């Protein structure tokens, strides 16, 4: 079926069957390969993109359901986190990196909105400090098999300041 997606600020038309995931729509139909596939089942976070500013796993989203939403992929990201990742060496192979960056952008917004995490001591205490433990808990949906976790946390901390 013919659908229209808004991606990184522009409208893209494509012909997909209803079972095609947003992830495959991006990678296979639109050639936007910056968003990665690590499991295709919601377990690794490599496919994280932003839908109306919220982070989602694109492999668990059907493309047809995201018509009319504003999708941001790594190709449309222009954020201080990107340089921070390079400075702190927050990656090795780079395969999880687009997902980590999109996820971190979404996470920073969630935190700003006062959303608690499992590491938050007092649910009422919104706007608490984003310390290492909070960042690690909130980023735990994004696997990095190269083990660049220390660098990723440093990059996020640098930018959150």
């Amino acid at each position: 079926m013919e659908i229209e997606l808004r991606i990184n600020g522009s409208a893209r038309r494509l012909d997909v069957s209803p079972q095609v995931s947003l992830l495959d729509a991006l990678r296979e139909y639109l050639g936007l390969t910056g968003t990665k596939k690590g499991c295709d089942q919601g377990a690794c976070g490599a496919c994280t993109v932003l839908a109306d500013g919220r982070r989602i796993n694109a492999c668990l989203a059907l493309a047809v359901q995201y018509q009319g939403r504003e999708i941001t992929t790594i190709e449309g990201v222009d954020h201080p986190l990107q340089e921070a990742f390079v400075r702190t060496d927050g990656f090795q192979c780079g395969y999880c990196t687009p997902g980590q960056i999109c996820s971190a952008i979404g996470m920073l917004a969630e935190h700003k909105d006062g959303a608690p995490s499992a590491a938050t001591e007092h649910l009422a205490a919104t706007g608490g400090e984003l310390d290492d433990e909070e960042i690690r808990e909130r980023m735990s949906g994004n696997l990095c098999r190269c083990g660049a976790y220390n660098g990723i946390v440093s990059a996020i901390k640098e930018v959150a300041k």
Partner: protein
Amino acid sequence: MTTIGQPLDRVDGGVKTTGAAKFAAEHFYPGLTHAVLVHATISRGRITALHTDEASAVPGVVAVLTHLNAPPLKPAPKPGAFNLTVMFSGTSVNYLQSDEVHWEGQPIAVVVAETSAAAREAAALVRAEYTVTKSVVDFEGSEQDARPQPNNPLLPRGAKKGDAEAALKAAPVSLDLRYTTPPQNHNALELHATTANWDGDRLTVYDATQAIDWFRTHLALRFGVPRTNVRVLAPFVGGAFGGKSAIWPGTILAVMAARATDRPVRLVLSRESVYRTVGGRTPSIQRVALGADRDGRLTSLIHTSITRTGPIGGPFEQVTAASQHLYAAENILARHDLVSLDLLPNTFMRAPGEAIGTFAVESAIDELACELGMDPIELRMRNETAVDPIGGRKKFSHRRLRELYALGAERFDWHERNPEPRSTRDGRWLVGTGVATAFHRALTLPVNVTVRLSADGGVLVRCGFHEMGMGAATAQAQITADALGVPFDAVRVEYGDSALPLGPFAGASAQTASVAAGVVQACEELKQTLKSMARKTGGGTNEEILRRAKVPHVEAVVGSDTRLGRIAGRARFLPNFLLDAQRWVKAASGVHFCEVKVDAETGETRVSRWAGVFDIGRVINPKTAASQMRGGIVMGLGLAMAEETLVDPRTGRIMNPSLAEYHVPVHADIPPIDVSFLDDPDPKMPLGILGAGEVSTAGVGAAVANAVHHATGKRVRDLPITLDKLL
């Protein structure tokens, strides 16, 4: 200014943080099709019927390839002792060439379709009927059938000094212990992927591989075309850890599908298909027995292992590789035994041998320290050795374990600990600390390199090596900049393409030193050329020399990529390699210091502090090298605390082939990891570089187990250390 030793940012940072870096599944061809594998669901037997009609009828399906219609494929060549090219076939099975099934998960069909969704849908509709023959798939149940590993010059069966069993019996203090480790999978985050395109008899393949040259040769052999007709590219690889060094069925079948359909084919394995068709780490059953006098001097060290191999392949895991070099025991026995199982062959996984072998031997040393009431570092220092313990003749090119222990103990405040197990509490947490040694042999491989200096001052380095996250291009640019005395930014490095001069396989932690040797030699030759040009034209900067000589560039070439050149390269390499191996033990080493907190009620274990100190010879880039150390430690923490591939002992089926059920460390599991280096060049390695890719994975399992024992008083000898084992 020298750039070696500077913590420079990676040269590929920009493309990796913007999504511009293209991995193997991200190259497009007009008319590209998508392929998906169908797996056998029996462990051994024959296919009696294959029903593909429903699959073929799915709209968009281009072909369903099975053994009934697949094009011919040449069998995998028999491995020879030194011919690594063919040793690196993941299995010896000739895919889709007969009705035989050799393992649960073997590909029995490939579906090719216009879209990946159609290919997946159709693949799920292929049905097979089988006759089942008897198979042996239970590792633990086969223990009594273990046989000595056949001897192999590269992978020895073991080693012996004196009579270790008699010395063990006579020792005033002795321990005889059994450790086990489960199978594990690499789980590089990038799914294994191949994009294959035939143009007549010429083949271009983008593959997630850490061995482009072996892939090229292997594909040429299997598909019966000249090697020069095959080009393999791997400009970026999304993690590998040994899992992308052998050639597994996905690559071969993608190339076959492209040939059969006359269309470009992309085959991305699903995560489940990775588990079913890419081997992982063998499980192990290990015995470590130690005999000592009351002062802690080892009189006997026995380390034996049982691991698996199989009729269709599986390299021999060198479980005792580190144990043979660590301690000055009077009597030593190291032995590798094998059981043969009808499973997907095991393969190399980060620090093969050492990762699991050090878990056992470094746990046992800790147990002995407890038995003697001695500090475990003190016990190790009493048994520290200056010569290789076995044979007693070979020297270590670099042995800095004393310094490493001293430095690490200071950074970690080791001596603050109360040695008594279960003596330290922090609220509901029991706190403990542990220590263990890391050790990994160093190796170099032959490489060809060209270095070209242009009249505009730019330098181009070309070598077919691999970038899987080590920061390889960045390190080689630093080495080149210093060797030629040019700025770092003037150097560009091309890699990841078999059309480039022959690069090494990216494994055995050998790549950086191997390429460095070639780069340094090329730069020296280039400087000589420039010198003689300067004599004729009258000095000046490099740019001036070239301008006056009216040449656009000068180039130095190390090695030759012709067939004869490659043979000559190997012929030069092997005798040197063997001679060197008789004289020297070269190895990277390190020490891990670990603090854990264990919930006294639930057994939940958190790693709360970590310090690693390493001797990797000269450190080219402390930033990327520290990342590699951390990455190795994180993988070691997975091995220690979570990772386990569950194989059904009745059917041989992997039961948890997903990242949801096979647990790898996540952000929340990893504390800040303190890494430091001695940064002292090894006198016998190119530029003094010892490999950095694997050493830090060795020893991690034992450091955690020792800390858990210190925290709780419970000794866990069976990995992973999950909370059920602490209740």
